[in-house]
């Protein structure tokens, strides 16, 4: 892996408070972006605790301004450029296994989302049973802008948001605040940040893994925030009208109609501009992913994500991911040169190739960690 000047082992702080496992993401300078070490360590902790009867509950939070700003993709890009895309794939393999474990975990996970939650950070929290948003939460799935696609099994939960909000959030990378997350269902609770330490103290006292009991405790500190006047959630009708369309081109066409019919409002035109900045390939791949995901269980979603991400890393069909990382994260000129450069140059067949098994010796589909019976019903409904 990449050379690191300081040891990694303080990137994840692990505590045990009575029956609660407390995991703190602690890589504050990188906004807790998940390094290879972090995903591997988290995977290890979750696997260990799964069968440990002394642990009834998992609390996850981040130090500093962020819960977690995503996977550390610039490190992945460095590895891949170093010659072997399989090294990069290993990062995603561990990350997706972790996502699966969280989605199907035998004990409730409470994630305290007091700050930035993006990409891989969403994957490390939204799959869990409880997601506590605050007035400081900023959520986004910004991958299409990077030439990647919202992965980490996010198409599972995005596709299950009301109407076609998931398409909107995933294609545009729109930022959501805590109130919006609660309203659409990405968050299960909204707790003002000032009450978080009290909430945590109460959670430490939980002696059972019964989700209804945990829920009752969080309820005590929860508030019902109101949506901001200009919240995008007030535009659900327009979002459904546009983002339910079959293709990205049609979505853009209906957004343009929306912009024409409602000139006073710049939501549609802003959305169009955002979409036009993103990688055309990423947009099309994501749209197909979320449409498939809506009809699949979490395991299938992650297996598909893994196939697609391996194609992206292998780079046979497009190098948009590397170009996006260069433009946004490395050179920071924010002027990626996508290839193909326009939506109409990406055919259905081009998109379909990302969903096929890789023709590369020794490559295998993602193997999900084995889950045993007696999982709670909120887990089995995701299978």
């Amino acid at each position, binding site marked *: 892996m990449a050379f690191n000047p300081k040891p990694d082992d303080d990137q994840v702080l692990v505590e045990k408070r009575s029956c609660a496992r407390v995991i703190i993401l602690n890589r504050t300078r990188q906004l807790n972006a998940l390094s290879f070490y972090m995903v591997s360590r988290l995977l290890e902790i979750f696997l260990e605790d799964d069968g440990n009867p002394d642990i009834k509950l998992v609390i996850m939070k981040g130090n500093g301004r962020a819960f977690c700003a995503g996977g550390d993709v610039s490190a992945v890009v460095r590895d891949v450029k170093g010659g072997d895309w399989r090294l990069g794939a290993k990062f995603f393999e561990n990350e997706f296994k972790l996502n699966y474990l969280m989605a199907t975990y035998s004990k409730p996970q409470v994630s305290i989302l007091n700050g930035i939650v993006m990409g891989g950070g969403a994957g490390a929290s939204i799959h869990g049973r409880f997601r506590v948003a605050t007035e400081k939460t900023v959520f986004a799935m910004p991958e299409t802008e990077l030439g990647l696609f919202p992965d980490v099994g996010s198409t599972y939960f995005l*596709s*299950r948001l*009301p*109407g*076609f909000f998931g398409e909107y959030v995933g294609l545009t990378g729109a930022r959501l605040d805590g109130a919006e997350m609660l309203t659409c269902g990405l968050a299960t609770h909204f707790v003002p940040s000032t009450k978080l330490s009290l909430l945590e103290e109460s959670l430490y006292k939980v002696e059972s893994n019964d989700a209804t009991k945990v829920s009752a405790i969080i309820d005590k500190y929860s508030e019902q925030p109101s949506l901001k006047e200009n919240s995008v959630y007030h535009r659900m009708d327009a979002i*459904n*009208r546009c983002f*339910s*369309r*079959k293709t990205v081109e*049609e979505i853009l066409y209906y957004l343009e109609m929306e912009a024409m019919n409602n000139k006073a409002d710049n939501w549609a035109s802003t959305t169009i501009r955002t979409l036009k900045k993103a990688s055309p390939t990423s947009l099309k791949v994501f749209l*197909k992913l979320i*449409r*498939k995901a*809506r*009809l699949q*269980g979490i*395991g299938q979603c992650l297996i598909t994500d893994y196939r697609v991400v391996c194609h992206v890393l292998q780079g046979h069909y497009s190098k948009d991911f590397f170009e996006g990382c260069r433009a946004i994260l490395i050179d920071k000129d924010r002027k990626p040169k996508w290839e193909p450069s326009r939506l109409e140059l990406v055919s*259905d067949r081009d998109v379909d190739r990302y969903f096929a*098994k890789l023709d590369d010796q020794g490559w295998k589909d993602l193997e999900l960690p084995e*889950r*045993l*019976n*007696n*999982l709670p*019903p*909120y887990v*089995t*409904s*995701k*299978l």
Partner: protein
Amino acid sequence: MDNDNRRASRRTEVLSNHLLPRPHTTTAHLSPSNCLSYAPPELSSSNPVSFDTYVMRSLLDGHNLDDRDWLFGLIVQSPLFNRQERGGRVFVSVDYNHTMEQQREETMRRIGYLLDRGVFRGWLTGDGPQEELRKLALHEVISMYDHSLAVKIGVHIFLWGGAVKFLGTKRHHDKWLRATENYELKGCFAMTELGHGSNVRGVETVTTYDSRSGEFVINTPCESAQKYWIGGAANHATHTIVFSQLYINGGNQGVHAFICPIRDSSGNVCPNIRIAECGHKIGLNGVDNGRIWFDNVRIPRENLLNSVADVSPRGEYLSSIKNVDQRFAAFLAPLTSGRVTIASSAVYISKIGLSIAIRYALTRRAFSMTPNGPEVLLLDYPSHQQRLLPLLAKIYAMSFAGLELKMLYVNRTPESNKAIHIVSSAYKATFTWNNMRTLQECREACGGQGVKSENRIGPFKGEFDVHSTFEGDNNVLMQQISKALLGEYIVCQTKKKPFRGLGLEHMNNPAPVLPSQLTSSILRSSEFQLDLFHLRERDLLGRFAAEVSQYQAQGESKESAFNLSYQVAEDLGRAFSERAILKTFIEVESKVPAGSLKDVLGLLRSLYALISVDEDAAFLRYGYLSTENAAAVRKEVLKLCTELRPHALALVSSFGIPDAFLSPIAFDWVGSNAWPSAQH
């Protein structure tokens, strides 16, 4: 003081216990291990996934998977489709508690939504196989949601729109096709009458031409001529196609099709038209079937759909097709697409039934083998396997065959019309009968849960029963196959030329000779299976020809000889269909690369072939198999079921039907029936 407070608060608690339901307190201290819990079949090691279910789904669906998934998503994500959350999952299904009138209005609202999302785009104005396949795929998805919705759309687009497209000419196309696709009008299709259904040539509605005004005049001369079961007529349709006898100068030119407005744009019934309800039905109550009477209704001369025949302004009858039979056949063209879609939709409905029943059988236990031993999963009983797994094999077989029929249809040429007519008749009858049988078995296999409407299978029995009757009565269709095969037989015999087409080429070879001892490996070989099916078909065709000619020699008319030979005709129709299905299955299998998926297909194909043999008494009746070999076939069925059992879950997952289109008993039926879910 303290004591008083305590007493007061206890008193309050007692009172509130009386007034408010307290659901959890009584059960909370019970140990959960005493209860049955739902174990997801996906996590059980007895259900390994040994092949790629998406590849299998691609083989089954065959085309437009992304379009299908898009439409599934449109339905699941909209509140118009009666989303219900049960046990943490969303399900969509119509609300059968609603009245007939409510269901009809809901159907229209759903159509409006699908229209707005562009689902029907190109369904009439598009041309070519790709457009047609997209339309067929989307229509299949719609029928999986609700038969009423599919039929209501099918009547408007396939029947009304199809008649305009296939029987009309440019002037009709320009005026109606785009307007129909956009639902600027609502069309229906008035063919059936109270007195005439399958025998369309006998309809009694009369149309004459008035050359002074240049109009046709339509009349319902008697009560048996009232148009009956006309979908869309009772509430919504603004226009209809009328099938009617055409009289020119007193001479009958046979059945013709006309466009006739029946309601104005505000929904008022037009003058000289009377419309009545058909009433509540055993299914399809979201479709407004009605009855129509015409009392000297005048329509412009241009409203005759004139691709086959026309009437000049002066009242001369003009037709390029002089032969009355051929002219009539041309008028029935729009019905072919109906048979193709019905055959295909019957397969998809069986897939839903089997997915639900098999998933339930993988989670529901009953009875223990030993005292205090664990109860046994339903699907681990050989009897339960033999109830469901042969039906699963049949649906795989019919799925491939239905796909081939669709391909034949969308790539049709004048030369292939006859084959399409025969194959679509055979498959429409075979698949719809099979669907009803499958649904009944699945309903019973789900026990009491199968009776609940939310579990879909029960209502489907009523909803899809009509499949065996509309667009051609199944029995009539099956007889047409035997007649057509006999026609081929006679031509080949008299002209001394070889059989070509309809898969009858095997008739040119000497009769296959079967091994006398049937081992397991022989029984599973596709060559043997095909030989056996060929033997049955060639023998029955010979028998049928002999029997008909024998009756004719005794002085019976040709028609009467057919009627008297009905039993053999029925056997032959079945032999033809099953052979055609098996042949397609073998072809599909041969194109799959070696591996676990091919192996599973091989098991399914063998099970399809052998259960068909086991269920058809003809093999013993006419001696194609010895009693000993027939018994060997039956034993092999059992063995194949055992071998398929581990693949059952993956095989129904491969159908690609979203969870939301299945039902609560297909998933966590303990959770979905738990007390909290009864609270809302």
